[in-house]
């Protein structure tokens, strides 16, 4: 059997880049959102969470309308000869938009659960809002943020609908594994489809298990008498 490995590399690249993007964007949006409680922000949440409930094809459709050459954003980008449809960046955009709500939701939850008095203590001790975020809020929210990252990674790896709409199926450029599976099945190549499906299954499972173990290790400091070994103080 002559297997073209391109979908594997494209999927891997797309998944890693979109997960990294979503990690930064999701955590930034969540930390910005934390502590703001008004009705208007609920609408803001609604807009951000839409991709979670919309069919991916609908998300892809709107992205295509927005970013297409005649779209409001696409036409602007076209002027600087930048296109974000039917090329590799389009796969990243599709995966990022679809997985963003997962990251945003879990990060909001994790940040919201932090005891407010800890953040207040940090402020009275002279910490700026940035320091409060980086030195207190994020480390405390880390297990939750990590869970969001895992979910986003797994979801991104399996992204199909929006990717196909926005990036199409260009072998060697935009054909990710899920897209390849679909077209393998359509052309009757069940064996190749099964192979790709097994790869996705194996990667997803490995990542989930590994991240679970890492989270348990990270949380150890919260549990009496089960300290992670080898941590040393930064002072003195």
């Amino acid at each position: 059997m002559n297997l073209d490995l391109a979908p594997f590399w494209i999927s891997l690249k797309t998944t890693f880049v979109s997960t990294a993007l979503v990690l930064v964007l999701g955590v930034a949006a969540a930390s910005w959102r934390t502590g703001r409680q008004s009705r208007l922000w609920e609408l803001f949440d609604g807009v951000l969470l839409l991709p979670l409930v919309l069919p991916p094809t609908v998300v892809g459709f709107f992205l295509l309308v927005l970013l297409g050459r005649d779209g409001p954003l696409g036409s602007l980008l076209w002027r600087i000869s930048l296109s974000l449809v039917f090329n590799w960046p389009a796969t990243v955009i599709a995966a990022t938009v679809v997985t963003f709500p997962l990251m945003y939701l879990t990060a909001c939850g994790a940040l919201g659960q932090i005891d407010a008095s800890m953040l207040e203590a940090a402020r009275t001790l002279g910490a700026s809002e940035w320091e409060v975020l980086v030195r207190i809020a994020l480390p405390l929210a880390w297990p939750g943020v990590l869970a969001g990252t895992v979910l986003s990674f797994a979801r991104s790896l399996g992204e199909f609908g929006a990717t196909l709409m926005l990036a199409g199926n260009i072998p060697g450029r935009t054909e990710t594994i899920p897209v390849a599976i679909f077209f393998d099945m359509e052309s009757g190549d069940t064996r190749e489809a099964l192979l790709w499906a097994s790869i996705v299954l194996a990667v997803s499972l490995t990542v989930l298990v590994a991240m679970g173990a890492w989270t348990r290790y990270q949380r150890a400091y919260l549990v009496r008498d089960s300290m992670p070994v080898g941590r040393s103080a930064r002072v003195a």
Partner: protein
Amino acid sequence: MSLEVDIERQFPDFALRVAFTAGSKPVGILGASGSGKTMTLRAVAGLYTPARGRIALDGHVLFDSAQGVNLPSRARKVGLLFQHHALFPHLTVQENIAFGLRVQTAERSRRVSEQIAAMHLSGLEQHYPTQLSGGQQQRVALARALAPQPKALLLDEPFSALDTHLRSQLERQLHEMLAGYKGVTLLVSHNLEEIYRLCEELVVLDRGSVIAQGPREEIFRCPPSRQVALLTGCKNFSRAQAREAHCVEAIDWKCMLRVEQEAPSATAEVAIRAHHIGVSAGSAAAQPLPANTFPCWLAALSEAPFHVTLFLRMHAPAADPSDCHLQVEITQEQWARVKSQPQPWLAHLDPQRLFLLPD
């Protein structure tokens, strides 16, 4: 060093209107829950913004609604100790204490070890908060608040999460520490004894307003109002009317009382603290009885390990346990002397200890 607070904020069912000045003597803020104690403390720390007013510490304006000044917490140089320590669980004891220190490494480790020694935390430097006992946690929190040398130290019910033994231990340490502390100290508590032992000056709050302030002895000796008397632990009140210069009629207690202070005509109530009433087994037959001494019968009783609370009915035996006039607190030793003697016993309301309250 002084702290001036004059703040205001209106809520649908509550108005905060607090003004007081604190010097270098520790000031205790006393009040029931919901009286605005914690809110006041948080306003000073910059964690809560009042609608109007001014807060100044050591000559620096921290908040002034007229000038539009509202310094963020981080710039206020105020140390805050929370009810539940609020230590950072992902940092060691040492890292927690060093968190607020924005100085060079050498100076930082010097100050951290200084605090570790002062708070008796040696050997725990590398521990995480969850590995410490409740008392140790609160000591680390205190060390962390003090390490940056704040101009004001705000203590919000610092012992409430501790058990009795640790409480008194930490209280003694805090007392020692406060003696050497140069800044302003505010202590919020609803524990009378704790606040009395630690603070020479008191501010009494009720439903968002200051209802008394001054030296602790004065506030406890002659509370200016019924609310203050209640909040400082007074248990015995009777409606009263002034009869002569040093004589009032206690309407609920159905008796005439001699009082040390001159009774103003506006006198509405007479009151006395439970442990200022003497109970003796002297014979009620020895007429006439000395001034302010009345026969009384036991209506109910509540025993603690070292003291006994008696609920007494004056003039006649009690019909049921709730039929009583006076709540009296005596030691177990005094109780042992009285309890075997036949009733009625004699209750003595010391004229120097009685105080009069306006309407």
